[in-house]
């Protein structure tokens, strides 16, 4: 009994302890850390990360990943800005942008699921292509970015506070997390994701349409990346084609910290959320301590390697012989 429950809980206890230690240390080191404004700030910062990572986590459970999320995020942000400014009413623009986001995901999914392109290559290609289009769209508008001339309702959407106090992105995050915990535990899609990541060949021989599952998940990842882009750009009030650079790695960092294996077949949304919190807390903490940006990057890198090494060590002790 201990062995099974053990592995999950042990890992989550470690994650929660790390979060507590960081929080405690930061509260001592910086007076600004433990107050409500800063905590809300952290939440706002990691919200897009958690939204995208909840879908990307499911993708990682199938044993695949998506490097193009940051670029699709930027592409959709700037596309939305361009269309609201020049072509369509805001509602239609959001809808159309979402369709494009899904198409980016579908293209990734078709490459990986049907054409058997390695996910690294396929999504690296999309990462460059989507980023290129983002710059191109900014150029269509006549500048390096789209900041002036946006209609006033452009910013209203992202700055909406539900019940007067909760920012829309937080609501969105809560919904996304709830949906993915549900998918993971209660739906066929979730169950098939685990089975594909665990044993692709046995999945095929059980009659599971593996390409279809992968395409659907890639489409959801694309959609969420795009939607986050739309909300984020609306919150900021102007669109830059270089936003979301490196987001794909933060997403992977949160997923790996949360205990999802790169090989697939295991992992959970809850673990990923804990991972994302560690990423957010560390970034915020180092900022408050005025640590230069590049040290923050070094810290992230070290975190990732330590997390994966620790996980491997845990795993090695629990492996059954030969399996």
């Amino acid at each position, binding site marked *: *009994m201990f062995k*099974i429950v053990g592995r999950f809980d042990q890992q989550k206890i470690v994650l929660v302890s790390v979060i507590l230690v960081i929080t405690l240390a930061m509260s001592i080191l910086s007076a600004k850390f433990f107050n409500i404004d800063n905590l809300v700030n952290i939440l706002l910062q990691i919200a897009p990360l958690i939204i995208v990572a909840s879908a990307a986590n499911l993708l990682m459970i199938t044993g695949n990943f998506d490097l193009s999320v940051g670029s699709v995020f930027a592409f959709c942000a700037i596309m939305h800005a361009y269309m609201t400014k020049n072509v369509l009413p805001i509602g239609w623009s959001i809808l159309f942008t979402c369709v494009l986001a899904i198409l980016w995901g579908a293209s990734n999914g078709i490459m990986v699921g049907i054409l058997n392109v390695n996910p690294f290559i396929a999504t690296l290609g999309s990462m460059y292509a989507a980023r290129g289009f983002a710059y191109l769209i900014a150029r269509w508008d006549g500048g390096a970015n789209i900041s002036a001339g946006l209609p006033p309702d452009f910013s209203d959407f992202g700055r909406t506070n539900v019940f007067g106090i909760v920012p829309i992105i937080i609501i969105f995050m809560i919904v996304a997390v709830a949906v993915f915990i549900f998918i993971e*535990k*209660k*739906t*066929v899609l979730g*169950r*098939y994701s*685990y*089975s594909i990541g*665990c*044993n692709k*060949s*046995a*999945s*095929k*021989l*059980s*009659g*599971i*349409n593996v390409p279809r599952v992968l395409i659907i998940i890639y489409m959801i990842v694309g959609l969420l990346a795009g939607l986050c882009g739309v909300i984020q750009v609306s919150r900021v009030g102007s669109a830059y084609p270089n936003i979301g650079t490196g987001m794909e790695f933060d997403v992977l960092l949160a997923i790996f910290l949360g205990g999802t294996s790169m090989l697939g*077949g*295991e992992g959970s949304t809850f673990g990923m959320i804990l991972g994302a919190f560690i990423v957010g807390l560390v970034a915020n903490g180092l900022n408050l301590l005025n640590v230069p940006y590049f040290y923050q990057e070094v810290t992230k890198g070290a975190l990732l390697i330590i997390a994966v090494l620790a996980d491997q060590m845990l795993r090695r002790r629990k492996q*059954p012989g030969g*399996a």
Partner: protein
Amino acid sequence: MDNDAILSIRGIDKEYPGVHALDNIAFDIYKNTIHCIIGENGSGKSTFIKILTGVVAKTRGAIVFNNKPFDPKNVKDAKSHGIVALYQELNVVNDLTVEENLTLGREKHRFGMIQKDDSLDRIVSILKELDKTIRLNMAVGELSTAQKQIIEIVKAFSIDCKVLVMDEPTASLSEEETSKIFEVVKKLKANGMTVIYISHKLGEVFEIGDFVTVFRDGKVIATKTVQEINKECKGDMSDACLELVKMMLGRVVIESYIPSKTDYSEKILEVKNLNTDLLKNVNFDLFKGEILGFYGLVGAGKTEVARVLFGIDVYSGEIRVKGKIARFKRVGDALENGIAMIPEERRQDGVFGKLSIKNNIPMMKIKSILKNGIISRQKENKIADDYIKMLSIAARDREQKAAFLSGGNQQKVVISKCLNRESDVLLMDEPTRGIDVGAKLEIHNITRNLANQGKGVIVFSSELPEILHLCDRIVFMNSGRVSTIIKNGNNLNNDDIMKIIADGERKYE
């Protein structure tokens, strides 16, 4: 033929935990001969080769090589003494040229830059002698399998190999390529090499062999000269093959067969003129409540039949399910037509190791655990508990991960997965391979029960006792063809079966 033994095997034993893989084997291999080794899967051939080539260490016994005790520490050590093995998985680099492959690992270099030298000339002359059509600047990827084998043989030659072990070199070759390899093997002998030739094709023994050693259940049954066998049988090839088959399989006891309540008026499955790359004109029927057995040596085409029926391989021909023509393009098509398969490779294709037993079981029919489109924990638990009880799966509880179960219990999980699909036809490919005797019997009983419930079961097995114990009718296969279909029963005797197998081997040589 010199009369001195180059290799003398003296009482080798090999024990793995729980398995006695080799039991006091002893025989001599003479210099400059082609020495064939035959035996069923698990008879100990491979273990013997592994000991000879330094892959594993023996438990007891001695090998004398060129009148000196020989105990290779590893593959390199064996190679340096002149014993090289050629495995079925060829060890060539497809992206490099023939020349680069031949010199791989032995390049002369100065400051890291590769220098050409004249040791190549010797290699080239060997290559020319064995196959004139291979040019040095060809990419190895363009060569045929037989030609790749020749490249490996030349490599072995160039490091002064004295004993060459060939592990089923012709298993995946066409007839034309096979004769090419035979030619090469004969040339090797002419050049003074000793060849140990492992094969499942009995005809080959008579075509190229000088000696033949038969392995069975980890023991050497006999070592004879091919001449000797020919003489005993007065040149009748069928009798000669029969002799080998008898030695290979031993006496098969047919005692425990219980006929199923087969309804011979209702065909569940009709297969007509089935053809694939490997299968040639396969025809058979499956009746309601019948256990049909497919028997054949390795490479006979059993697994291929299973793969076609489960929608994995492309085929031409006609398959009718309950009288209606069905076309299988995907696994999904087969499942929808009521056919489920227990695959041969349990770990690779059957079981989801990281998932719990209860997650594994509904995988072929996820609908069985859905309630209003959502996974219902109660339903899932109930199904898991039912199957754990029904097949007496020995597990701590339904939450246990499949990877932690024993082989037999993993197989029961895979069977549960198929049963839960509630299909009419169940294909079982080597259902009890690598499983202990107790679990084997249980799986046999489960199979009988299924047939008695009116399902059609096809068992594909390379274990003759299993087939004879279980199946109502038996399809014998050789080289992708059906040689005979017989009814199992008390009037069947040991000699008949051996004759059928030997005749099949002869017919399609």
